[in-house]
């Protein structure tokens, strides 16, 4: 099996879905690129290269460049999906949710409910999410923790190339609106990815590591960092479950609780700030449903309550790393 980067794995999923189903199209800023200029049309393929080659293979009718108009992009995807298309829209950086929140939350996320179950909105909105690029306050946020709080939306956070392809193919086939957050620091990370199409169901966590002493739940780019911490602790005789939920909505609460009941300890890791976030959410779940199993305090490892800083030293201090995760595991084991 060939190794592929997360970027190429998602790109392959888009190509295959578009070849299989004529109702799938991509839309966004520079998803083709070089429109209206003397340059080579389609030569950009998205600022992170995720939609590369799609314009040349499928043409302008199904690889649609837009002006910088995020509300119009999400609205176009929502409207097309309401009448039966399966758009995959790109909103470049997850931070830009701030300029199209209404179209995501009040429009596409609520159609089905408000219309009495008589509509479907099979749209996927892709975002490059999270920190690690010294991109500062407006281009580094995770944002998926915010969007998880809105009923009607499904939220996907792949942590590796294999999952990214299978989750993207599930997202495109899903009849509900799906927000797909790609940790941009992982675009270049590679692993074995099958050439054929396959799906990974939503709401089914992946056990990245299995152990007896502590449950670690991590999201997105925190998954490889948590694995690094856990592998280091294994040398000290501490073994942990590492759970990657893969989707925060729906959340595989069963897998998390089962693990916590077995280990009696829980560390939750995310790169977003702590307030009203996924770590608090999972911690509350365990405190509510598995309290009597707990042998130590639930620990949350996340960014501090501040915007993402620019300076590489500051950002390194801001985003949780393997050392902080190790320390949290040891603290709850103490």
């Amino acid at each position, binding site marked *: 099996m060939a190794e592929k980067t997360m970027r190429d794995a998602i790109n392959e999923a888009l190509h295959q879905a578009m070849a299989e189903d004529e109702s799938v199209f991509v839309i966004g800023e520079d998803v083709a690129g070089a429109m209206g200029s003397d340059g080579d049309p389609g030569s950009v393929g998205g600022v992170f290269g995720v939609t590369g080659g799609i314009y040349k293979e499928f043409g302008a009718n199904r690889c649609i460049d837009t*002006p910088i108009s995020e509300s119009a992009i999400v609205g176009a*995807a929502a409207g097309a999906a309401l009448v039966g298309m399966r*758009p995959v829209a790109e909103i470049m950086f997850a931070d830009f949710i701030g300029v199209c929140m209404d179209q995501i939350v009040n429009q596409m996320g609520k159609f089905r*409910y408000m219309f009495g179950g*008589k*509509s479907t909105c099979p749209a996927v909105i892709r975002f490059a999410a999270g920190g690690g690029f010294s991109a500062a306050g407006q281009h580094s946020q995770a944002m998926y923790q915010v969007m998880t709080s809105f009923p009607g939306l499904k939220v996907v956070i792949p942590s590796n190339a294999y999952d990214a392809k299978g989750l993207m193919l599930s997202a495109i086939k899903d009849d509900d609106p799906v927000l797909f957050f790609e940790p941009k620091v992982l675009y270049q990370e590679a692993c074995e990815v099958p050439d054929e199409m396959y799906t990974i169901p939503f709401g089914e966590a992946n056990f990245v590591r299995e152990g007896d002493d502590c449950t670690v739940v991590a999201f997105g780019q925190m998954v490889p960092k948590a694995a690094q911490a856990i592998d280091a602790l294994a040398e000290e005789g501490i073994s942990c479950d590492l759970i990657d939920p893969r989707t925060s909505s729906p959340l595989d609460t069963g897998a998390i609780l089962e693990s916590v009941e077995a280990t009696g300890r829980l560390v939750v890791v995310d790169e977003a700030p702590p307030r009203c976030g996924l770590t608090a959410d999972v911690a509350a779940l365990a405190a509510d449903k598995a309290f009597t199993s707990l042998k130590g305090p639930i620990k949350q490892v996340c960014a501090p309550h501040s915007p993402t800083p620019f300076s590489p030293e500051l950002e390194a201090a801001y985003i949780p790393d393997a050392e902080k995760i190790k320390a949290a595991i040891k603290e709850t084991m103490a």
Partner: protein
Amino acid sequence: MAIPKEKLLQAYRQMKTIREFEERAHAEIMNGQIAGFTHLYTGQEANAVGVCEHLSNEDTIISTHRGHGHCIAKGADVVGMMKELWGSSEGLCKGKGGSMHIADIDKGILGANGIVAGGPPISVGSALAAKIRGRDNVAVSFSGDGSVNQGTCFEAMNLAVVLKVPAVFVIENNYYSEHTSIDYAVGCDDLKARTESFGFPVFVADGSDFFDVYEAAGKAIEHARAGNGPAGVFAEQGRYHGHFVGDPQTYRGEGELDELREKYDCLKKFRARMADSSEVSSEELDAIDSEVLALIDRAVDEARSAARPTPEEVTRDVYVNYHATA
């Protein structure tokens, strides 16, 4: 343009149905029978009907918070709508949407919309779908004079031009965005020119006159349907009620509403024109009036006794499913 008699009768029936639906809704709200926020379309009936008489079920509309008229004009079931206002599980949206979110996808009604200018971007998506599929359908967004100052409206208009999609932007100027005059809220003197500067034609109509709206909308829809990209319709006509039911309307000038109801009433104008042209007799219109009143009575009777939703409905229809189909 000559309009066949059957269509004239249908247009009158639709306008009268909207009028009576709204007036009855008003009475029932004042009686405490209907919960929530309701925004009535009374007075503007010719706008919705003049546009929707050009549309089929395959064409889509998206509406506003003042959406009852658009939904009726596009063919929504009036009894189901009344049940929805009552919050019944037999309502068009099972009591989950209410007045501001009435939708019927099969009829091409992509929903009334509680967010001002929330609709135009979505309508451009429907128009884009028609273009990608190579169909000659159009997507109409109704929005008001309040919407024209929202960024989403600008974004949608520009994107529609850039992608050359069959979107028709119907701007209904009822002179007030909530409680603020258009003279205050729109910073330019010529809204038609400002809108046309996006790069599509705008056709202006007297919103109190069905025939004028029908003609203007016909031009705009034909332009879009023929693959020439988006078009706009501006229809001017005041609403007879407040922004919402219960609005004390302190912003109105003295005698303003009386003049509106007296001189700018689409039903009176329609009847006067028919009296002049003898295309339709007053007896035929009287007969429609009776049928409409009976329909609205029946709608209210059925809504009063319709099934109420049970608590387990709260979490139903949030999602289609929790797992993707393989």
